[in-house]
C-alpha cells in the first residue's frame, strides 16, 4: 500500500543541476507532504485524499506526488527541498510543524508556490488555509444533544489550542441548542496529538463517568471511536467519516475536504492569480460537511441538522453569534455580535456548559 508516487527519472537529473525551471508545456508538479504514515481515516488520510480531487479536476494538466511520514524536525526541510529540486511547482504542507521550513524554502524559491495547512504566517508565495471544523462540530453537537439519554456528553480533545477550543465550543453550543437539559460536558485533554492507548483510556474514563456520547476531537487514531463502539455508546469525530470503526454507534462526523481548497489554489497558479493569503474554508466552500449520521436519529432530527448546515452555507446562521456566556459565568460574545475570523482563530474561552478549566 505504498502511497509514494515514483517520480519520473527526469527528477533525478533535475536534482543534480538544482534548478526549479518551469517548462510552460510541462504539467504542473504538485507535491503533498503528510507528517505521518497514512491510514484510512484521520488527518494524514485527509491531507493525502485531496490528491484525488486534484487529479479528477485537472487530469493530465498536473502531476501529483505524495510523500508521507515527514514530521517536523531537521529532516523535513530536506524532503521539501528534494521535492522542489525534482521540479515541484506547488508544495502542499500537511503539518503545522512544517511552517518554518516551508517559509524558509518559499523565501529562497520565489517561483515555488506553497500552501500550508493550519499555519498563520504568509508570504507572497506562501498561502495558508484552515477548515472551519467548528461548523460541522456544531451540527454534530446537535446530533449529540438529540442522541444522549444520560444528558451527559464527553469529549476527548488533543490540546487546548484556539482552534480546538472553537470546535469544542461550537459542539456544546449545538448540543445545548437542541437539548437545554444537558449536564455540563466533560472534557479530557490528551495534551498530545498522538497516543492511542490514552485515546482509549480517556474514552473509557468518560464512559465510566456516565457519558453516552463520546466526541473524539482531532484524534491521532480512531481508538476512542472503536472504544465507544465496544462499550455501546455513541461516537462523534472530526476530520473523517469513521463509520467503519464504529459501524453501529457512529453518530456523526465532520468530514473535511481539503481537496476543494487545493484545487482552488492550483487553479490560481495555472491562471497566474496565486496570492499568499489565508483561506478559512467552511461549509459554504464545500471544505467541511456532516457525514456518517446515525440511523438512530429520527428523520426530523436529521432534517433539522441538514437545515442548519444549509443555513451555514447561505450565511444565514453562524454558531458564534451572541449572546454566548463563557463557563465562568460572564459574557463571551455580546448579543447580536458575530465573531470574525481572527476572533475565532484566537479563541481563549470555554462556553457555558463545559465542565473543564483552561490552564494559565
Amino acid at each position, binding site marked *: *500500500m505504498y502511497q509514494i508516487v515514483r517520480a519520473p527519472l527526469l527528477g533525478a537529473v533535475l536534482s543534480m543541476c538544482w534548478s526549479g525551471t518551469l517548462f510552460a508545456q510541462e504539467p504542473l508538479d504538485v507535491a503533498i507532504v503528510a507528517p505521518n504514515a497514512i491510514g*484510512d481515516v484521520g488527518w494524514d488520510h485527509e491531507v493525502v485524499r485531496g490528491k484525488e480531487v486534484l487529479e479528477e479536476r485537472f487530469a493530465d494538466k498536473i502531476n501529483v506526488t505524495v510523500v508521507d511520514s515527514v514530521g517536523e524536525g531537521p529532516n523535513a526541510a530536506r524532503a521539501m527541498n528534494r521535492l522542489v529540486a525534482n521540479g515541484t511547482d506547488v508544495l502542499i504542507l500537511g503539518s503545522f510543524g512544517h511552517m518554518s521550513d516551508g517559509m524558509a524554502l518559499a523565501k529562497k524559491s520565489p517561483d515555488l508556490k506553497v500552501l500550508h495547512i493550519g499555519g498563520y504566517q504568509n508570504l507572497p508565495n506562501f498561502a495558508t488555509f484552515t477548515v472551519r471544523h467548528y461548523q460541522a462540530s456544531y451540527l454534530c453537537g446537535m446530533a449529540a444533544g438529540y442522541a444522549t439519554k444520560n444528558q451527559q456528553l464527553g469529549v476527548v480533545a488533543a490540546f487546548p489550542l484556539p482552534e480546538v477550543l472553537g470546535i469544542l465550543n461550537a459542539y456544546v453550543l449545538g448540543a445545548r441548542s437542541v437539548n437545554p437539559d444537558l449536564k455540563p460536558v466533560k472534557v*479530557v485533554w490528551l495534551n498530545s496529538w498522538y497516543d492511542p*492507548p490514552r485515546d482509549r483510556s480517556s474514552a473509557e474514563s468518560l464512559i*465510566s463517568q*456516565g457519558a453516552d456520547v463520546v466526541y473524539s476531537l482531532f484524534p491521532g487514531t*480512531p481508538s476512542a*471511536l472503536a472504544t465507544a463502539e465496544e462499550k455501546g455508546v455513541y461516537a462523534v469525530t472530526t476530520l473523517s467519516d469513521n463509520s467503519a470503526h464504529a459501524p453501529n454507534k457512529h453518530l456523526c462526523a465532520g468530514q473535511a475536504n481539503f481537496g476543494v481548497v487545493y484545487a482552488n489554489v492550483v487553479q490560481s497558479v495555472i491562471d497566474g492569480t496565486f496570492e499568499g493569503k489565508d483561506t478559512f474554508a467552511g461549509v459554504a466552500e464545500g471544505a467541511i460537511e456532516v457525514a456518517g449520521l446515525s440511523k438512530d436519529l429520527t428523520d426530523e432530527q436529521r432534517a433539522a441538522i441538514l437545515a442548519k448546515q444549509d443555513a451555514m452555507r447561505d450565511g444565514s446562521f453562524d454558531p458564534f453569534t451572541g449572546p454566548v456566556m463563557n463557563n465562568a459565568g460572564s459574557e463571551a460574545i455580546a448579543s447580536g455580535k458575530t465573531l470574525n475570523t481572527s476572533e475565532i482563530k484566537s479563541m481563549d474561552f470555554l462556553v457555558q456548559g463545559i465542565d473543564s478549566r483552561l490552564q494559565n
Partner: protein
Amino acid sequence: MTDTIIFVLAGAFATATPLLLAAIGEAVAEKAGVMNLSVEGMMAFAAAVAFAVTYQTGNIVLGFGLAVGASVALSLVFSILVLGFSANQIVSGLAVGILGLGLSSLAGRSFENLTMMAPANLSLPVLSDLPLVGPILFRQSAITYFAFAVAFLTWWFLAKTRHGRITKVVGEDPAIAHNLGFAVIRIRLFAIIFGAVMSGLGGAYASTILTPGWSDGLIAGRGWIAVALVVFGTWRPLRIAFGAYLFGALLLGDLAVQAMGFSVPPQIMTSLPYVMTIIVLAAVSRNALLIRLNAPVSLGQNFQPSK
C-alpha cells in the same frame, strides 16, 4: 467520583499488563546476567505483527504466536551478538532495538490507523458482581491474569527451584557457574528467549487488546518503562508486579486528576515513573550489601567458557 476511582484502579491492571510482561522477561534475562535493551524494539515489532496477523486472519492466537516469533527472532540476533560473539550487551541491545523499531513501521505500514474489536474481558462469575472489587479485580483480560500469574511463577522459579538458583548463579558469577558445570551460555540463551517471549506477548497485548489498533509508534516508550520497572522492582518479580500496577495507575492518573477538576501538567505524571526509578536505584545501590542483595552482580558482563 467512585466511578473515576474504580476506573483508575481497574484500568491500571490493563495498562500495567504489557509493562509487567516485558519487565518480568527482562528481569529474568538480567538475573542471568544479560541486559537486553532491545525491549522497546521487540515490543514494537511484536505489536505490529500481532495486529497485522489478527486483523488479516481474525485469529488472535495466531497473531500472538507470530508476534512472539518475531520478538524471539530479534532476540536471537541479539543472542548471536552477545553470546556468540561476546559483543557489548548495551550496544547490541540498542542495535537490535533500533532494528525492531524499523521493522515495526515496515510491518505495520499497510495497517496504519486501523482498529478492531478487542476480545471481551473475562468476567468471573459471581466475583465480578461484587461491589467495588468486582469491576476492579474480576473483569480483566485473560492476558492480565496471565501476566500477574507469570510474575508469581517467576518469583517461585527464581526463589524456590534449583533451575532458578542456577540462573541466579549464572548472573552473579558466570565463572563459578561454569566451574560448577553449568552451561552458562545455554542458560543465558534461555533467559534471553524467555525475555523475548514476554516482550512479544506484551507488544501483542498492546496492539490487539489494550488499544486495540495499530499506528506507527504505538509502543511509545513502554519498553523503556519496562526496563525502568526491573530496576524499580529491584529485580524481584513481586515488587515488579507492584511497580507495574503503580506505573499503570500513574499513566491513567492524569485522566483521573482531570476528571476531578484539577489540572496538573501531564508531563509531571509522565516523568514520575522515571524519577521514581532513579530514586529507587540510588537507594538500593548505595551500599555494597544492598546492591548485592538485589542487582545481579555480573549484569552486562559477557562470559566465554574457554577464556
